[in-house]
């Protein structure tokens, strides 16, 4: 994780005309910003597009960042504004689903922000170890999505029902969260 001194050093480089140094910022926070946006947006395309917008805006507004403050929180603030604009755009306002999602996001915004602080890279490490600890059946269910295996086919493979597959997903998530907590402590 970049320390405040590192961030100062990067900002100095950028102010000195070395725009390329901003890539360190992107490298450090792209995963967490994409994860943050991904928790509130359905499509990965939209997540990636908006995340790019966040970093472009951040780069152009670096002078507004007060050194010493939490850079990640500052980026998430920009992300929140982008999300709001996204939901408010006319095309999306017309969609009942997007309106519903916007209302949901407004309800959970504070909780999401509270959970987003910390070092995302550490969480990823733990998550990796935790997935490896999942029972074989749950790991198979988790893998199935990436392999584009339909729930019906997955259910057949595991000799169970489609509904049970959804439950297995939830169970996998539960175990992952529990494991993440244990690993953290």
């Amino acid at each position: 994780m970049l320390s405040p001194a590192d961030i100062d050093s990067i900002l100095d480089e950028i102010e000195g005309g070395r725009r390329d140094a901003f890539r360190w910022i992107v490298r450090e926070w792209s995963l967490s910003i994409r994860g943050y946006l991904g928790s509130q947006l359905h499509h990965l395309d939209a997540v990636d597009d908006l995340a790019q917008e966040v970093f472009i805006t951040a780069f152009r507004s670096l002078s507004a960042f007060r050194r010493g403050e939490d850079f990640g929180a500052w980026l998430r603030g920009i992300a929140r504004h982008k999300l709001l604009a996204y939901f408010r755009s006319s095309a999306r306002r017309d969609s009942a689903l997007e309106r519903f999602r916007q209302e949901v996001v407004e309800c959970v915004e504070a909780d999401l922000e509270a959970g987003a602080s910390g070092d995302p890279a550490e969480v990823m490490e733990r998550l990796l170890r935790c997935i490896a600890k999942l029972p074989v059946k749950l790991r198979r269910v988790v893998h199935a999505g990436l392999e584009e295996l339909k729930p019906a086919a997955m259910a057949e493979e595991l000799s169970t029902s489609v509904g049970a597959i959804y439950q297995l997903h939830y169970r996998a998530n539960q175990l992952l969260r529990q494991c993440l907590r244990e690993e953290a402590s």
Partner: protein
Amino acid sequence: MEPDLNDLLLAWNGAEMDANRKTALLSKLREDAVFRRAFVEELRMLGMLKATQSAEPRWLRLEDELGSKPAEPWDEEAFSTSIMSELSRTEPAGFLKANRWLIAAAVLVFAGVAAFWGLRLGGDRPAAVAGLDKTRDAGGFAIVSHLEGTATAEPRGRAVHEGDVVSAGRFRMPAGAATLRFFDGAVVFVEGEADLDLLALDRVLCYRGRLRVRMEEGASGFTVTSPGMAVVDLGTEFALNVTGDGAAALHVFDGKVEASVLNREGYTLRSELVQKDESASIQPGSGRIARTDQPADAFASAPTAPTPVLRLDRGYAVAVLASKPWGYWRFESLENGLTPNEIPGGLSLRAVGALRLSAEPGGNNTMEFSRDRGPEEGDRKEGQYLLMDGLWQQPAKPGYAVELWMMSAAIRESALVSLIDGSREGAPEEHYFLLQLMDQSQRWLHPNGSVRFLQRSPPGLGGGVNAFAQRAYLPGVWQHVVAQNSGDRMELYLNGRLVGHAPVDPDQAPGLYHLLVGRLKQSVRGGGDATRPFVGRMDELAFYEHTLSPADIASHYTLGNPPAPLQK
């Protein structure tokens, strides 16, 4: 799972639900903190997996904003210092901690949860494209490989960025310059103010602007029209300045063109052949085509971009070796015509023709397949390619992967890597595997400028199963390609992302194969085009007797795109 939570997740993912039920769920979400926390935990997990579902996206606008990465000289010392500084801050959690980005990407394997919920619970993304990269780049007439200033294109006058594919319709630039690489081989340099209408793969209508058209080797017939006139290229490089009043000035830099004044129906009324170094004025109003002495510098220039550098992270080779390749050729040396295999005891690649190593800043070498010394010219009989100094005996267990970095000089049909039946000496070269770059869709239906992964089992001269990339490759840019076959599924990755896949029948019997790089086949029968010679650079070719996980692929790609070192 608690029923309300289940329903809320279903609704969040787009499942049909009664409005009253949704309202009730929202109320509970507002009022019940425990319920809210449970939902947020689900969202966070899904977001985390979604973020790691793919490699770092290629953010072209951000790249634009920050400037081109290779612009600065490689500062190895600074890089080393910064890496050591990074490591010194790292707690001794070992490899996992120090390679967190590699590890983060590894979670790709497990991103099925996000895909599963997102795709199966009523989301509107078709299952057919599940897991695929964005498809907005598929198809189209040309790719915008360079852009200075702003430009808009169809549909709806959207802003254009470098790397975008543009299709039929208007392309406008109030100022600045752009390079459009058409998929039929024409490169069009545009200087604003420009107002164009892209009519076809080989035809542009210019209302206003300064254009320069360069045809790739072997391509011809590109036509630039404006109201009342047309210029048809005959294998050449020419420039045209079109003013708002319809008059045009023409200069031919190389080869020749046919310049026409058109009648009302849009057919040639008068025409003139204009040769190299000649200028002409075309006046539709008076029907005249007249030679002029307008100098070449009065026309659009053809900027030469600096050759991009492949800047590999120092951990790249380590990561590849950790994936246990059967063969790994880094192209760092070429002695006695052999470039060695990094795997002890592994077979080298033998260079045939005038291949050479190109030294990149930072000490990395790449293999250069030059146009000037290609099979069409000096080495017509021999061509230039790499051939493995021995055969690959396919093991009984199915699965293989081919991974490399490549930078093509142009959009053209060219072979990257082939596996050719080696069991019968002297027999026609029958392909088992082919990885190649495409130009426009002609013989096969595919997005223009795609990458093709062909599998023929048993090996043959035709047929087989194809997986085409759903997005175009960029010429003049280093790109990471992986083609792999797990036994029953082919997968194609471009820059860390799955861009094409296809089901495939299992191999009938393990075979014995030649590995050929940079050309379709050794034989020159059929001429240069039939051998599909690659022109450009390659590096870090790896061959595996197993497939790579999406996480490995993503991490390898990421390690080929490290940020420039901090100058501490």
